């Protein structure tokens, strides 16, 4: 194990609320580092500023391109010469410039993406926490065997199970369509996108188990002496203490869902059911130069902004957790 930002550091001091601070869960301060001379430092500042500009430039370019009229996308001006609102407007036939929300049900896509991300992330967060708690705290036969299997499933590429799982959903879909009293569940519905989250995810279970192992057993023994059942112990002690880890899992899963193109591509046919990544892929294919007719790059750029901006806002709100979560991964050894 490396020394460094361990799982324990996921617990910032202020976040444990009314619960007592767990002894092990103390945030280690980052060690002050030997500082370089002022010459090297200013050289680094210049270099880092240069790299920062390179790293941020695409975002500013995108933001500006989303508000340029048709034909101006590739003038590459940082501030548009002419401003244009490319999101809504009157319906005009094809030679006229198009508007994002007119050419596609983009509002539906946004709603679908938000809904699926939050539902999937919430489900996987609670279920993974429950499973992780069982692996961390309870003693039961076959525990190590099952946990080894769980770790093993992390090695399996998704491509192996992708096809049979698709065929399974296909079969479920045929079955539910044949029985009209059942709701339609299967391919071409959104269920395949979030239902698997209800069964937990190996990586998150592993992450949360590490966190729970850092909480002293005495806490739970004390709760049991107070007459708590196993589930209320989990709900009253484990969950509140694990809040930072829960947030990390939630954010990771929202991000994974928001990024995912392949699953919607496999399962969704009707435009109204699409998510933003799949919708943007459609916009790109339809309105770029290869799409035929006059390209409407301003629609593509508006759609890209629609996909990028929510993640940036989420990052702005939960920056600490994004970075802590990622930093924790590497120190698992």
């Amino acid at each position, binding site marked *: 194990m*490396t*020394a460094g*930002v361990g799982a324990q550091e996921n617990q910032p001091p202020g976040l444990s609320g009314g619960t007592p601070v767990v002894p092990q869960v103390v945030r280690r301060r980052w*060690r*002050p*580092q*030997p*500082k*370089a001379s002022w010459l090297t*430092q200013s050289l680094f*500042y210049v*270099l*880092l500023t240069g*790299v*920062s500009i390179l790293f*941020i430039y*695409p975002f500013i*370019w995108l933001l500006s391109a989303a508000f340029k009229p048709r034909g101006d996308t*590739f003038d*590459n001006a940082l501030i548009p010469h002419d401003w244009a609102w490319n999101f809504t407007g009157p319906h005009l036939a094809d030679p006229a410039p198009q508007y994002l929300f007119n050419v596609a049900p983009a509002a539906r896509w946004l709603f679908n993406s938000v809904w699926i991300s939050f539902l999937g992330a919430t489900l996987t967060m609670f279920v993974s926490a429950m499973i992780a708690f069982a692996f961390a705290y*309870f003693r*039961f036969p076959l*525990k190590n065997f099952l946990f080894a299997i769980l770790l093993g*499933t992390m090695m*399996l*590429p998704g*491509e*192996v*199970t*992708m*096809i*049979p*799982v698709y*065929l*399974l959903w296909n079969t479920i879909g045929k079955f539910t369509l044949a029985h009209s009293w059942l709701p339609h569940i299967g391919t071409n519905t959104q269920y395949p996108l979030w239902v698997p989250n209800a*069964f*937990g995810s190996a990586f998150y279970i592993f992450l949360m188990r590490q966190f729970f192992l850092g909480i002293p057993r005495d806490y739970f023994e004390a709760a049991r002496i107070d007459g708590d059942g*196993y589930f209320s112990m989990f709900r009253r002690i484990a969950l509140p203490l694990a809040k930072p880890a829960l947030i990390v899992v939630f954010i990771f899963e929202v991000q994974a869902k928001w990024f995912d*193109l392949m699953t919607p591509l*496999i399962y969704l046919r009707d435009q109204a059911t699409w998510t933003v*990544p799949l919708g*943007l*892929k459609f916009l*790109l*294919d339809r309105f770029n130069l*290869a*799409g035929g007719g006059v390209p409407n790059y301003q629609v*593509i*750029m508006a759609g*890209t902004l629609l*996909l*990028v901006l929510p993640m*940036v806002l989420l*990052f702005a709100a939960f*920056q600490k957790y994004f*970075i802590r979560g990622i*930093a*924790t991964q*590497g*120190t698992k050894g």
Partner: protein
Amino acid sequence: MASVTAGTTAPGPSRARRWLAGFREKEARTAYLFIVPWIFGFLVLTLGPMIYSAYYSFTNYGVSQIAGIDPVKTVGLKNYRQLFHDHYIGLALKNTFEYGLMMVPARIIVALLLAMMLMKIGERAGGFFRTIFYIPHITPPVAIGVLVLTLFNGGYGIVNKALAHIGITGPYWTITPGWIKPTLAIMDVWACGGTMVILLAALYGVPRHLYEAASMDGASKVRQFFNVTLPMISPALFFCFIILTLAALNQFTVAYTSFFGTQTGGNGPDAALFYAIYLFEQAFKFFNMGFASAMAWLLFAISMVVTGINIFVTKRFVFYQGAERS
């Protein structure tokens, strides 16, 4: 559980019986209640599909079998033999490896350089730059695909405009076959923030007294880097290496967004045909489920071999604190 029952001569319940009795404990029953979602998910969404996938890879499972028109027939090793005869497989593997060889080292080196610079400029400014460098990492891959096509557009893109300023005629990044994979790798380097944060955390974990001891022994900065920093952060480097290698093997979204789909009539450039894309097309465009399953198992085998090599290398070079160096 034969080994458990053997050798129990002591009176009282046998070990097997006691082991079985373990299931009847309240704690065990509660535990199984807690993990039953995972067990169900594992059986239905992992183990079952694995068995089916293995079975399909030996059959002619295709579009007429899904529709129920033709019966499913086992075809022996035909799909696996086809892996060697289909020249797109070789092409896709070559593309994927080439891309991985560019992307993984470039991303780790750039991330390490950035992290080391951040270490030297103090906590406050370092935190600011760290946030800036992390932001590209949260760009959805489909958006990166769009940026590939627009920023790196050969005729109008900003990259070639900028290069023209310093007197370089930029190539047609997204059209010239030789430049497609480097372009994707450049975008991956741009999104190196995650790798950088992991390495930064590892760098902060290196105890300062090691540097002090090294400099007292007269070690130069370069020597300190190779003899103190690198060994101390090698577990994190190793972790990044495995994660990025697997990511390169599974590269799909960015390349698919930029070069495949209906825009190209379904036929993307050969230079952008990555293994995961070819697998996806075989499975969900041509519905050659049998062949695609065989492809998936080949990918699994390759991932295993790559990870195995990584672990072998780790044993020699990675230094875990507190463990004896072998």
